């Protein structure tokens, strides 16, 4: 053993710690920047595709919106209002430029600014999605880890059986059961509607609780199964055996070395679930009579309100791409091997 005085070792240590952690931070920042650039590119491409599909597709948007029996002068008025009287390229930049400053145009059916409509709906849908996601993660992580730690035993079988049920049962049925039990029988919650955030945060949260649970349960079932199988894969890895050979108990090894390694596939699923929860909860919104984004899209499509459809679709694309960006960052935070990659 080389004889080094503790003082010089200490000096050396503080020196490498600084430079080395600075290096890790730099790697992480560079990775984030690269991901950010790819996010911008994705958004730009997505905006072109959406614009092309909705506006440039054959046929006149105005006559599509008004139906085949529309009067010629009504059509012309709508075209002017929609800004269809300029070139397609010009229209694209008007649309994108408008969105950048929060100007989404005016809804044809509601005659109100689209930005305001979306903002109102977002105040319901976004908290609901986050609430549901938080619930599903809170249920799924302990359940998945518990099941993996007791593989093949009664606890595992119970959790697996429950998740099977959670996946099989449709969420609107769960929603109706929740209403029946907690709203009609026990009267703990309202059967539907949204109290709004003006009456206080807890009131708002309270009225979102049943829908959030209905949304979260099937998602939690999926997530728990992913967590379990991912963790089981990790438990078979060589480094878990190394951890045990160091003197860690099974449980310690699982928590210290297993869980973080198992997170990568779980993060992927969480990202997908969030995107789904944000816009895909239309049935649940319908059951609980919530003014969310899903219903807005549905109504806009039924009413052929292209401006609203276009804006909401772009917003959802933006949300999905942003969530993917955040998931990418989470990957790199969890797994240092990804930081150096392009």
């Amino acid at each position, binding site marked *: 053993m080389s004889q080094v005085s503790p003082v010089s070792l*200490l000096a050396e*240590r503080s020196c490498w*710690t600084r430079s080395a952690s600075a290096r890790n931070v730099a790697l992480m920042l560079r990775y984030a920047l690269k991901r950010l650039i790819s996010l911008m590119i994705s958004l730009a491409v997505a905006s072109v595709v959406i614009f092309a599909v909705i506006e440039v597709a054959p046929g006149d948007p105005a006559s599509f919106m008004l139906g085949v029996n529309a009067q010629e002068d009504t059509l012309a008025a709508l075209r002017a209002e929609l800004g269809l009287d300029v070139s397609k390229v010009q229209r694209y930049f008007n649309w994108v430029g408008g969105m950048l400053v929060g100007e989404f145009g005016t809804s044809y059916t509601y005659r109100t600014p689209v930005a305001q409509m979306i903002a109102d709906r977002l105040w319901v849908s976004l908290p609901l999605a986050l609430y549901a996601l938080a619930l599903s993660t809170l249920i799924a992580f302990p359940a998945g880890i518990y099941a993996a730690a007791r593989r093949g035993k009664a606890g595992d079988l119970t959790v697996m059986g429950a998740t099977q049920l959670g996946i099989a049962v449709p969420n609107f049925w769960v929603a109706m059961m929740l209403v029946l039990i907690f709203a009609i029988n026990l009267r703990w919650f309202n059967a539907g509607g949204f109290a709004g955030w003006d009456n206080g945060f807890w009131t708002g949260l309270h009225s979102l609780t049943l829908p959030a649970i209905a949304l979260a349960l099937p998602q939690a079932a999926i997530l728990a199964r992913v967590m379990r199988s991912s963790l089981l894969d990790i438990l078979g890895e*060589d*480094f878990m055996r190394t951890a045990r050979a*160091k*003197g*860690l108990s099974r449980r310690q090894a699982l928590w210290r070395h297993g869980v973080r390694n198992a997170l990568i596939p779980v993060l992927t699923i969480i990202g997908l679930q969030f995107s789904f929860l944000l816009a895909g909860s239309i049935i649940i919104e319908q059951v609980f009579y919530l003014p969310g984004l899903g219903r807005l899209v549905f109504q806009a499509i039924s009413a052929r309100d292209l401006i609203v459809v276009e804006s909401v679709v772009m917003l959802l694309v933006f949300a999905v791409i942003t969530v993917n960006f955040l998931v990418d960052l989470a990957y790199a935070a969890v797994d*240092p091997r990804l930081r*150096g990659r392009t």
Partner: protein
Amino acid sequence: MSLLQIEDLSLSIHGTDILKRVSLTIDPGQIVAVTGESGSGKSMTALAVMQLLPIGASIDGAIRFKGQDLLTLSEAALCALRGAAVGMVFQEPMTALNPVKTIGDQVTETILIHKAMPRLQATERAQEVLTRVGLPPDRFPLSRYPHELSGGQRQRVVIAMAIALRPKLLIADEPTTALDVTTQAQILDLLKGLVQEYDMGLLMITHDLAVVADMADQIVVMRQGEVVESGATTHLLKHMKHPYTRMLFEASDHQVILPDPVDPRPLLQVTQVVRDYRLPRKRLFDAPGHHRAVDGVSFTLNRGERLGLVGESGCGKSTLTRAILGLEDVKEGEIQLNGQPVFTGHKPNLAVRRKMQVVFQDPYGSFNPRHRVSRLITEPFHLLKPQPIGSEKQDRIAEMLTAVGLSPDDAGKYIHEFSGGQRQRIAIARALIIRPELIVFDEAVSALDVSVRAQILDLLVELCAAYDLTYLFISHDLSVVRTITDRVLVMQAGQIVEQGETEQVFASPQHAYTRTLIDAAPTLPDIGQYVA
């Protein structure tokens, strides 16, 4: 009192007997090597000492560590023992470390589990230990992640974790099997040094008899869960009693005599081949860097010649092989088979490519498990025009299976019904069935047990006589290359640093790197004198 005493240890897993009445002892400062072929139970013996056996294991007998029977200890007591009094090093350094934790954290963890001390102090201890195993913190900061280190460096980290608390007993399960020869020599030296310095007992599990003869004070030879012979190394080497021990040593040093090559006309000509790989950009708008994997390689392979290619991992062997097989284009230079280029423009020349076949290392991963042998070995038929059908096809299948030492009846079986050695025979049959002009053996015997390896080498000699094979034999195992090739290429950092007649290159290597390789490879003692 011995440090470790295993007495009549029997182990079964889900009712299958794995170990049968195994006994061995280790004294402080002693190196005991347990050797044997796959399935002999050597790794299970090691895991039994650690009490890290798979679920469903039932165990009988006694494992006394410093007089205390480990089989009677509680799990908590075992946890206190593992890592502190008994350390363990594993075979696969690439996967033995947690990829998401720094090496400093992982070494520090061993210390903190067992000794209550401030984190700073534990970190200092970790630094000392890492310095001892050859990873000084000024060059290898504790904040490094495993993926930033090479295989040999990672194995040093694993060793540092195992010896951080100066255990009395170190168990090393094939610690150098996954490493290059020069790295292997360094790691073995390190282990030897640590044993002396700490007066540790070392239980070393290895299939490599040359390593055993080089390192061990005591040898324990196992077969199918039983100890067939054990004793002091020098004594055992002189007086091998059990036929299995003799067979192992003979097979490890199996020599074959190749038939004389026929018709020395050039078949494969590799001229100034260069292949680059793109590296990730250092900065966002920099031009990406390049790694030159193959750097100006030229050689000629004559018809009927058996050419060896040796070199350590990362030297460019695989890249060169892929280029020869036409699987990857080269940046510069040309590869010709029979005077025809493997690549025309940037497109592989299929007419040339179908004259080459390859046999891979892994006999388990290189077959589709859902196809029968007849379909597996006739896969290359799609290269032929017209394709053999009906009785002609059946005849060729039967001929090939017979040629590689299997029965024509095996054609209807699935691949899981065969052992590793038999699978490698099937792989050879698959390569041979269209009578290619060139066969590439890419580490084709590296994954096999010594006795099976000896049989496959014999088979190759028979096939050379029957079919005038021309092959390129790629291996990291110098002793195999020495006996199975006429000529050899030594590759280092993308370049051929030496080439010549195999026997001459091995007897009097000219290049310093060749000498390093040959010196680093552990050699079997001349057992000819003992085995009579």
